[in-house]
């Protein structure tokens, strides 16, 4: 499998199905692990990095965590391909931009990725479309067990799994759920949600955080504490709070409909109209408009489109995806033109295809 093939698909976490997929984009769990016999990455020599990579590569391949593994040496990859993996959430931005030997192992369905020589020696992450943390936890702990049979993880009797940053020590566990909360943003209630999550030490952050605004109304909710609570408890805490937020978002949507169905429909239709006709469009504007359209699809205001279509557009309009598809490097102005072209083609094609089916 080639990296370019990834641009044809959407990957597991954007499938747009699974429980509560109208609001919950994906459920994700990651574990931070380190080999006992090497310094943490910041202090590792180039030889250390090579050895760590070799040991973990062998452990991953031999533990047969998947029979369709794509193993990628990131230090041999072009920047645009690394960026593509970032846009698909298969590696972190830090991992893409770092120097020295580093790698990622991905299963072909993009359900999990194992990052080697990221901030920790090994970062395992498992993702699933929709709201299903328990299933994700079961998968990741099985992968962790399989690898642990072949290596010695750095572990302390009292402190648990030892990590490069003390904020991850203990379980090394980060449980996160990505939510699409446009109605809470429009009704200005999102701050209230932040405040209540803060009180129970959960973190909230944007999904595509690189811009100057919270883009696409996506928010990621995750645990902050990793020590002194069992994995089950940490998973459960996020698991318990998400339905509450989903409920707030649904209520806010109902409120918007009740207050002014016309205004809401107008907002959604205008967003859809711009996306179908623009000749040049920035990533930020695309995200912003797609967010409205996504909510419109959920509320049945745009029957022609599916949630999976919108999820795909969110990813396929990102810079590296655009450049991989056109096959060349594009500057920002050219990307905006290409993005608009892609959106027009996709959205007008969808409509045409559906019409043909109806006839």
């Amino acid at each position: 499998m080639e990296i370019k093939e990834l641009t044809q698909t959407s990957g597991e976490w954007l499938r747009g199905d699974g429980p509560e997929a109208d609001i919950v984009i994906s459920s994700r769990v990651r574990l931070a692990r380190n080999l006992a016999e090497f310094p943490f990455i910041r202090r590792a020599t180039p030889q250390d990095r090579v050895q760590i990579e070799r040991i973990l590569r062998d452990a991953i391949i031999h533990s047969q965590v998947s029979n369709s593994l794509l193993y990628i040496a990131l230090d041999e990859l072009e920047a645009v391909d690394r960026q593509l993996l970032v846009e698909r959430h298969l590696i972190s931005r830090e991992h893409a931009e770092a120097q020295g030997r580093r790698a990622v192992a991905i299963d072909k369905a993009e359900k999990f990725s194992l990052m080697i020589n990221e901030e920790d020696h090994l970062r395992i992450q498992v993702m699933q479309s929709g709201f299903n943390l328990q299933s994700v936890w079961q998968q990741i702990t099985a992968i962790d067990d399989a690898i642990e049979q072949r290596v010695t993880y750095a572990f302390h009797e009292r402190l648990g799994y030892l990590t490069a940053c003390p904020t991850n020590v203990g379980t090394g566990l980060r449980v996160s759920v990505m939510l699409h909360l446009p109605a809470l943003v429009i009704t200005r209630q999102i701050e209230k949600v932040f405040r209540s999550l803060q009180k129970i030490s959960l973190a909230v952050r944007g999904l595509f955080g690189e811009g100057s605004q919270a883009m696409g109304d996506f928010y990621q909710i995750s645990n902050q504490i990793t020590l002194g609570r069992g994995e089950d408890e940490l998973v459960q805490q996020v698991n318990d709070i998400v339905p509450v937020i989903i409920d707030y978002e649904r209520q806010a949507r109902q409120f918007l409909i009740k207050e002014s169905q016309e205004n809401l429909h107008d907002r959604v239709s205008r967003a859809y109209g711009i996306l179908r006709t623009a000749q040049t469009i920035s990533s930020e504007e695309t995200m912003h408009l797609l967010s409205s359209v996504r909510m419109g699809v959920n509320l049945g205001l745009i029957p022609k489109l599916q949630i999976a279509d919108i999820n795909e557009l969110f990813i396929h309009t990102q810079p590296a995806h655009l450049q991989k598809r056109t096959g060349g490097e594009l500057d920002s102005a050219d990307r905006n033109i290409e993005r608009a072209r892609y959106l027009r083609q996709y959205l007008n094609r969808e409509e045409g295809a559906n019409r043909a089916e109806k006839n």
Partner: protein
Amino acid sequence: MKCQQCERPATFHITELTGGKPQELHLCEEHARHYLTTTGGEPSGSGGMAAALAQQVQQMAIGQTAEELAHLDQQACPVCGITFYEFRSQGRLGCPHDYVAFTKQLEPLIYNVHGESEHVGKRPRRSSGSSEERTQLIRLRREMREAVENELYEKASELRDQIRRIETEQVA
């Protein structure tokens, strides 16, 4: 305390541990929200994530004299050689043994972050003793490098044999 970006009171105290140096931020709700939604975060699960620590984290050395502080800062890990000052300025530890070497400095920090000081949950099947033993390889490899640099070849070869012995011990 006032928000660093406006006149409102700072209700969010954030210690940013991602990026180069740990940074203390004191923000009002609105600016905290802006900050949290526009910084990189953990785009891939972890990714990356060590996340920004949106939590009140006290300075680890509050209440200590400058002299004590300087002393604690200069302390170095015997295994990887990192000083506590280096950790403080980079926000990342040097090796697993740092958690032992810097217990005194790290304990209050860890407690402030997690509100707990003992791991509950999953453990590897093998004993933590074997983990600590293997961490000593870091020290031995470092000593071997230093021996070579100082042209102490006999010592280097002894260290090499010792390293090989531990390395080849059955992992499983």
